[in-house]
């Protein structure tokens, strides 16, 4: 086969990482995130056959149809994507998993599953495309809408928002990041690092709803987010197979080593923020509560927590790859059962 044009390290053109045409509103933040996912997967040279894309229900959850056409996808039930992801992780621990969710899907109907997904540490990249509203049902507030923000109709939200990043850190998630759909420069290396992390990685991305929550007075609009975001650092991701990695010295300050050997460099720090300090991370998010500032970047990166499959002492071989002979139990259990009940 002759490949025309640019290809990545496994010889695939970027087109191979695209999906079907988006049916979201023109200018939707989610489409920008989709582009970043495509770019990150292309740059990393991801093998699409060994990746699955999962989602719940909502505008965000439609997006897995728009990227990685050669990967299996599952647009499941509202709020239940974490349960599907858990099952997939149990069945085939070799698969990479990208889960796309929204603020309604995660912070309301699926909250119970979300927290247990973190507790189990199922390896996956969990993306929340966070716009503060229910887009697909025409613009009702979600549980991440800021106190005092208002809808186009003038309706004001009087309830405080749930900070998914703070929640995730508290629950022991080892990779917690926040970004903005309009900042691919930050988002792409962030996604790449998340995919290199062996465990659950949460990326909470402000992704403005162009139709229902992009007006004056919204705290999740493009304008507001651009004006109020404060990146903690610039990111530079060096994958494990990159030759420049040789220059990297172990223990270098403000560089995060990923489970697969890749390194995420944190550059141009405005202040001395250490994302490996859990208390500092929680303190930072606590300071931001009720403020106008949206900090973005790697909020927390821990290590040492076992993945669900490791904690459960699973065999390395995916259960889905077991042959019938391997699945089939021997007769001992039956013999023991029969003699035990006579």
């Amino acid at each position: 086969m002759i490949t025309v044009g640019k290809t990545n390290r496994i010889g695939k053109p970027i087109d191979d990482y695209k999906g079907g045409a988006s049916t979201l509103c023109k200018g939707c933040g989610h489409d920008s995130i989709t582009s970043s996912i495509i770019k990150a997967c292309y740059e990393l040279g991801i093998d699409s056959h060994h990746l699955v894309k999962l989602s719940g229900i909502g505008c965000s959850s439609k997006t897995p149809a728009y990227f990685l056409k050669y990967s299996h996808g599952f647009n499941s039930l509202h709020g239940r994507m974490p349960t599907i992801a858990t099952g997939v992780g149990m069945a085939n621990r070799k698969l990479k998993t990208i889960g796309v969710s929204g603020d309604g899907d995660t912070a309301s109907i699926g909250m119970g599953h979300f927290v247990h997904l973190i507790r189990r540490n199922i390896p996956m990249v969990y993306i929340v495309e966070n716009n503060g509203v229910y887009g697909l049902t025409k613009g009702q507030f979600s549980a991440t809408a800021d106190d005092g923000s208002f809808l186009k109709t003038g309706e004001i939200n009087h309830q405080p928002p749930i900070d998914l990043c703070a929640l995730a850190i508290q629950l022991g998630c080892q990779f917690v990041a926040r970004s903005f759909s309009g900042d691919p420069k930050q988002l792409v290396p962030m996604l790449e690092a998340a995919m290199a992390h062996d465990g659950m990685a949460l990326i909470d991305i402000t992704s403005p709803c162009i139709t229902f929550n992009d007006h004056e007075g919204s705290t999740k609009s493009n304008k507001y987010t651009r004006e109020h975001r404060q990146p903690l650092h610039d990111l530079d991701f060096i994958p494990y197979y990159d030759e420049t990695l040789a220059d990297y010295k172990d223990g270098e300050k403000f560089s995060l080593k990923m489970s697969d050997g890749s390194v995420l460099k944190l550059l141009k720090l405005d202040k001395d923020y250490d994302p490996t300090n859990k208390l500092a991370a929680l303190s930072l998010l606590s300071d931001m509560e009720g403020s106008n500032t949206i900090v973005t970047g790697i909020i927390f990166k821990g290590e040492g927590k076992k993945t669900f499959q490791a904690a459960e002492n699973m065999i390395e071989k995916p259960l889905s790859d077991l042959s019938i002979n391997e699945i089939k139990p021997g007769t001992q259990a039956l013999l023991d059962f029969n003699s035990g009940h006579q």
Partner: protein
Amino acid sequence: MVSKVKKINDIVIEVATENGSGSQSANNILMRSIFYMGIPVSGKNLFPSNIQGLPTWFSIRVNEEGWVARKDEVDIMVCMNEKSVVDDLKKLSVGDTLIIEDSLKSLINRDDINIIIVPFEEMVKEICPNARLRRMVVNLLYVGVIAHFIGIDEKTIVQAIQKQFSKKPEAAKLNTDAVKFGLEWAVKNIKPSELYQLNTVNKTAGKMLVEGNEAVALGLFYGGANVVAWYPITPSSSTMESLIRYLKKYKKSADGKNEFCVVQAEDELAAFGVVTGASWAGARGVTATSGPGTSLMAEGAGLAYFAEIPAVIVDVQRMGPSTGLPTRTNQGDILACYYLSHGDTKHVLLIPGTPEECYEFGFEVMNLAQELQTVIFLMSDLDLGMNNWMCDPFKPITKEISKGKLLSKEQLETNKGFKRYADVDGDGIPYRTLPGVESDYAAYFTRGTGHREDATYTESSVDWLKNIDRLKRKHDTARKMVPESIFIGTGKQRRAIVAYGSSDPAVMEALFILSKTHGLEFDYMRIRALPTTEKTNEFIKNHEVVCFVEQNRDGQMIAIIRSEKPEDALKIKPILHYDGMSISASAIVKQILKAEGR
């Protein structure tokens, strides 16, 4: 005293105790020692939804002819619990026997029964110096007293104790001593019964006493279940606990790793989601629950049906609605599970009626889910699942484990693609691929929304009809794949009885009584699956009067049959039992006689 007919090897013993007192172990020893005398026996544990302190009963039916369904009448009542004595006394007929703890004797308000007062509480102090253990050990004393009273062989009691405490020699000794102490007291103080006696026969040789839940678990295990996701709920928990035990013991790799994975989920929605995700990705997922759990799984069941993902739900039914009577038996989920979810869903249900079938269908359901690519229910109930049933040892399953219509990389490359929802074989069952197959032709997008044959999104009515009608064809294919009904009788009778699940022993006994005592002959069909097979439909069609025995208020199976075969609607007579107790033959006989105008 009124004279009663002497009964040999035909007794109902009921023991009333307090739950959490350890009486279950004593009752099992009592039941098993009778079983070891070669006499058919069954035990029904009637327990409260509580851990300690509420009344609980254990009913043992001994019957040499093998009639071991629950019986409404009690011959010997053992009263150990002050709270239930007054009601317990009402269960006895004139001339029956009461064995009662001495301190409760002031509560006896009858003089038409045979009363045996035993100082159990005093005796246990003598035999058991450890005060904490007395609550438990006292129960062994009544085993000894009953043994003398009805003639249980002491050897078989020791054998039963050894079985119960095979790994705890100290407990075995304490229990044996206590039983002997009770027996010695009885020898000195009471005469053996003139009415009820047990004689050793040879009708249980080689047989087992099994709870349906553990049999289902063994079947699932042999069906290759390797992802278990569950949320604890009575009366299903022991199904998953048994399966997990088998997996941990027999499914380790050479280096001690698990060739399976278990998750105790955050709720039943999650349990079913995990099963769905795991099966979608190529594992063999299963969950077990009861009515409230299936309600929570309803949305997921619709997705598994429509997106065509293999999944197995074991529903051990209990009394509802809501929490209902969580520790009482019922067949009240048949209708709900058949149609579980919203929209045009219709599922496959396997309905075992014996421990052997629990085991066989446990295997079968794992295969059928893969072969039909859908959610399949195994409908058990509390009576079948949690009580002890006599059966033959299980035979090795000769069928092979099936993965269904799964396409390999080679097939995909040869065919240059596939259409996920196309009916290639005319049976309504499409082909599928798993993530991880290294072919650009493998991927497809799974969704609960309208989809074309190639799995792409559509809202077209034409595509919708094509797909939903194919799913109906698949349901009709299932009709030919599910276990056939069991047919008993000549097939030439005008009247028939139809039943399913745990009603079987009571129906069999009722057939005997109706024939012998009332001269009424019936053919009998036991349905073992939905959708109904062709032969099942024929059977109903070929009989003039069809009495449907169900353990629910509204006749849920009847509703399904009437809706699918309206031409047969009028010949169906509902015989319904729904008080939470296991169904008895007399409950069936009474209603049938009434229906017959007798």
